[in-house]
């Protein structure tokens, strides 16, 4: 087997007052598609922040095979100021990071790419809209474009399906499956029933991390992992219905 592009070893992490992650180990390989599940407050976002280098762990090691690994990131909707005066195109271009020389005018190839991504995610004609004028779902699409415009080797998504309608959710998973041929994907979602048909493997995060090297999951398994989430499912997306439930989150 090839080497992991990202290795987490014995991670202990959290915030001043609170240790959230205990002894977490995870290897991410180049063509992985890992679905991260777990209860609210279980530490999923914290885990992603450790991977992204936004939070230094108390102890343990985060190692990238290639220190220059390009990472794409779609944050959980929360901290962004929706009144901020920035338009859709600029948000998407911000995904390019430091790759460009800032004072050079934008090359048309990059603009074309941004417009292609907008078309792909159903945002055609919205490049000039202020971010505050978008619906929640449209905003998520913009953030998806921003996350992938730099052709990352590792794509990290924190609940990308929040606010997104079922139609686009189908497109979203289709897009992700295609992207997965070129990049590793780590995706947090509460919609386990749906993601289990798209992801290749599953990680349950509830303080510690249980890695399940297949995408078939059952409620019994989750119980043995001490991962108190229930498998829910709805909509027209192909899925494995194990239990119906409709008041998650």
């Amino acid at each position, binding site marked *: 087997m090839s080497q992991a592009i990202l290795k987490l070893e014995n991670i202990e992490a959290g915030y*001043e007052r609170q240790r959230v992650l205990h002894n977490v180990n995870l290897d991410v390989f180049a063509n992985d598609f890992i679905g991260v599940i777990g209860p609210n407050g279980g530490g999923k976002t914290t885990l992603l922040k450790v991977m*992204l*280098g*936004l939070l230094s762990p108390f102890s343990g090691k985060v190692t990238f095979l290639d220190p220059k690994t390009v*990472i794409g*990131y779609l*944050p959980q909707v929360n*901290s*962004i*100021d929706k009144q*901020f*005066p*920035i*338009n859709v195109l*600029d*948000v998407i*271009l*911000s*995904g*390019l*990071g*430091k*790759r460009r020389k*800032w*004072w050079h005018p934008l090359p048309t190839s990059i603009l074309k790419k941004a417009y292609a991504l907008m078309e792909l995610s159903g945002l055609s004609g919205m490049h*000039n809209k*202020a971010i*505050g*004028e978008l619906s929640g779902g449209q905003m998520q699409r913009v953030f998806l474009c*921003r996350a992938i415009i*730099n052709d990352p080797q590792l794509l990290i998504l924190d609940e990308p399906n929040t606010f997104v309608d079922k139609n686009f959710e189908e497109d979203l998973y289709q897009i992700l499956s295609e992207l997965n041929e070129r990049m590793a994907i780590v995706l947090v979602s509460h919609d386990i029933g749906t993601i289990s048909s798209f992801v290749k493997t599953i990680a349950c995060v509830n303080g510690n991390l249980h890695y399940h090297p297949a995408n078939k999951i059952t409620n019994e398994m989750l119980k043995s992992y001490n991962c108190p989430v229930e498998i829910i499912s709805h909509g027209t997306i192909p899925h494995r219905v194990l239990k119906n439930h409709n008041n998650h989150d």
Partner: protein
Amino acid sequence: MTDFIDLFHYSFFQNALMAALLTSLIAGIVGAYIVARRSVFISGGITHASFGGIGLAYYLGWPPFLGAAAFAILSALGIEWGTQRMKIREDSSIAILWSLGMAIGIIAVFMTPGYTPNLMGFLFGDILTVNPADLIILAIWSLILLAGVIVFYRPVLYTAFDSEFAQVSGLPVKFIRYMTAITVAISIVLAIKVMGIILVLSLFTIPQATANLFYKDLRDIMWLSVLVAVGGSILGLVTAYFLDIPSGASIIFTLTLIYAITKCIKTILLFKS
């Protein structure tokens, strides 16, 4: 009318006009950034903390604007550092530095023997005493600022919008935050000469509110704020001269009037369509 034209021949008025122009340019650009980042309160803290520097400079016999700049920069960095590293609530660290700066200033002025000449000028602005050296400093800073905006617009915008994402995408976020904090501090201190500590923030916020009525993109808000600030401050300055009222206050009235009229026109147009 001849009065009006004569006015522009006086060198003190030409200086005042130039100062108003350059200060408006600086305040228009920097203010748009401040408002976008929702850091108007931070800027208030920096402004008032700088009074400590002015007082101390008087006491020690140094150039007051050097003291103001030092205090402004230190408090800008202090707020940034206190909230980032020490996890102090931002509004608390602002309030502490705000009042501490004023207190230091008052004590220093109180202890300085004799009469402290330009105290009112520092509090409320004194545009008619602007001298060529002030103008040169304003002009140099305007050029630096313009160059900075042209070169670093995008990384600064991205960091202000979503600093976690900016950090992941490889931008030197900490460096950018400290540099922009220093830029804001210097810009405010330079504007104090024209507007005074108490009134200066108006030039950094009212034109931006007007521009925000029309635009939702930082770039557009920046240039329109500059235009509104320039127009408002020149109009305010001329009014101040003819009515013989303090220029800073007159400029604020003009800016507010422009905002109110624009807002009304916009509301009426919206209502009609």
